[in-house]
């Protein structure tokens, strides 16, 4: 169970911008074990999608500098050749995106597009089609045979996302990267897709890396969580570590900002200020300017990630952490 599948070591991603470099991800480290649902959660622009895209080298070329190691099954994907990566994409690591309509070709039936992936593995056409239908049934697509012959525009948003999941699962990857998979969907459909992802993890044993800004999803299905802020992973731990005992001031304050109560019970906590510019390579904690507990040291030194318990890590100087509750 505790076998490691993906380990990211000191990953930094810099984008070239007009006035220098923008440090989108700085020194990110975490690992995903087999069969685990690992969530990266953070607000927009915190670098969570950049991490996901850099794993499969999907970032715009020549525009970025990736440093660090991306160890997948003992191989460093950051050092891999394009050809080696080709064998990993789809086959070993699948990815689904926020808007399935962007990922589907409008002029082919969805079944054909799912089949295309299966055919790459040199499976005879007839067998491949049967597998498509089988996958459609696995993702609980109503009326699978007919839907496999439908074009993307004939399907609803939820069904399209099911097609994407079927497409990924058809090649039985070890890891599924889901970048905001339910953001475009209604809550009721979201609940169905979440349940599906969970079931598939249990049946196929696929590990899932879930990229989201929605803490509700995290609370619902994640095993492990990494909280990101301004390109830094500030805290990692089990979902219970993060929700019950957040140690980093940012995660702590965020937990209080979630609307979990009614207005009669009081007002939500807010975090004042805004995210600093990430272009300057100034030392110091990137949350310091908004942190109510910041000391002089926080502005001058980079905090290292610190182990608090077997599962819980935090990037903060505060010894005991903070409990704003």
């Amino acid at each position, binding site marked *: 169970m505790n076998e490691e599948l993906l380990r990211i070591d000191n990953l930094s991603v810099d984008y070239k911008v007009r006035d220098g470099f923008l440090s989108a991800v700085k020194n990110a480290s975490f690992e995903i074990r087999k069969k685990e649902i690992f969530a990266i959660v953070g607000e927009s622009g915190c670098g969570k999608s950049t991490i996901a895209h850099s794993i499969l080298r999907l970032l715009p070329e020549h525009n970025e500098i990736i440093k660090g190691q991306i160890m997948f099954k003992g191989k460093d994907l950051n050092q891999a050749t394009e050809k080696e990566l080709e064998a990993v994409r789809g086959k070993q690591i699948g990815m689904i995106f926020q808007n399935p309509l962007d990922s589907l070709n409008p002029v082919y039936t969805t079944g054909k597009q799912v089949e295309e992936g299966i055919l790459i593995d040199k499976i005879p056409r007839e067998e491949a089609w049967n597998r498509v239908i089988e996958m459609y049934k696995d993702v609980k697509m109503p009326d699978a045979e007919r839907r496999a012959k439908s074009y993307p525009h004939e399907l*609803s948003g939820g069904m399209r996302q099911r097609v994407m999941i079927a497409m990924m699962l058809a090649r039985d990857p070890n890891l599924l990267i889901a970048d905001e998979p339910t953001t475009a969907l209604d809550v*009721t459909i979201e609940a169905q897709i979440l349940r599906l992802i969970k079931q598939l993890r249990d049946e196929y044993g696929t590990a899932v890396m879930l990229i989201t800004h929605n*803490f509700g999803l995290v609370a619902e299905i994640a095993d492990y969580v990494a909280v990101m802020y301004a390109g830094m992973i500030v805290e990692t731990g089990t979902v219970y570590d993060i929700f019950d005992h957040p140690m980093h001031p940012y995660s702590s304050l965020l937990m209080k900002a979630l609307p979990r109560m009614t207005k009669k019970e009081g007002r939500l906590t807010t975090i004042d200020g805004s995210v600093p510019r990430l272009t300057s390579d100034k030392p110091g904690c990137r949350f310091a300017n908004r942190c109510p507990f910041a000391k002089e040291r926080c502005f001058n030194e980079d905090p290292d990630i610190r182990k608090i318990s077997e599962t819980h890590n935090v990037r903060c100087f505060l010894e005991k952490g903070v409990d704003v509750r």
Partner: protein
Amino acid sequence: MKEAQIELTHVKKYFEITKGIIKQKKTYVKAVDDVTMTINKGEIVGLVGESGSGKTTLARVILNLTKPTGGTVIFDHVDLSKATKQEKKEFHTKVSVVFQDPASNLNPRETVQSSIMRPLVIHGVPKAEAREKAKETLDMVKMDQRYLNSYPHQLSGGQLQRIAIARALAMNPKIMILDEPTSALDVSVQAQILNLLLDLQEKFNLTYLVITHDLNVIRYISDKIAVMYLGRLVEFGPTEEVTQNPKHPYTQGLMAAAPILDPHLRGRKEYIMKGEPGSLVNLPEGCHFHPRCPFATDRCKTTAPGGYLLSDEHKVACHLCEQEAVGIDREVFPDSTK
């Protein structure tokens, strides 16, 4: 006794679509189908439902941006369909609206100040006075005066939403319609905007109609919740009753689908609604929800349920609640014998 701010009676909004070139056939998209509800003064009412359930169309009808196909909208005892030009103009100063995406509803070529001033100038407020008012409203939304001369592209999403709220406040409205006010925002900014809205509501005793699909936000902010499904109001009642003890099977499914922000409570949901909302074009007979409803009976397939009153303020449109009901909403079913 609470005073009604807006009374909707049998409000309908149908959109006509014609099919075929030679033999033209008319069908209707029933975006809002017979909605009757009352929003009282100083209340925050949350309107929830899946996409395509008619939430925004209902808001547009209330704002008088589109004419209802049937039914009446009464605002402050004035029937809008019979209102004079003067009354309509007055109405538009009392109702204001904040939309989802703040970046697209502010003119990119106008400064913050002139954006806020615009509605005032249109309604004949002298420029100097309007300028003062712009400063004042910026204070109300807790933004620094230096932003007056900024352009929208220089501001963050949260700041833009504050500007949109400031502009909505400029005319001293009585009711604000907030269409997905925080959907485009991050959690920490969402908290700031929600708190701001609550502060303003308390200060000016405003009435809000908040449209959103985020049930956690609705539970936090609203006094009452109205649930819509395929153009019809299926449940309307006090927030606590609707969230903790939902009566309509659709509301139950919706509440169960809402992500609970606590990992200890995960997996408790037994009931996840199957299927997807149907289309507004081919609406099923009887109750619109019956194809997805696990409890549907033959009666549900033929007769649309009326508004059963579970208490003075809690109204449900479901046959299953008939036994529990203390009465029926006579306004909804004037011919009913019960």
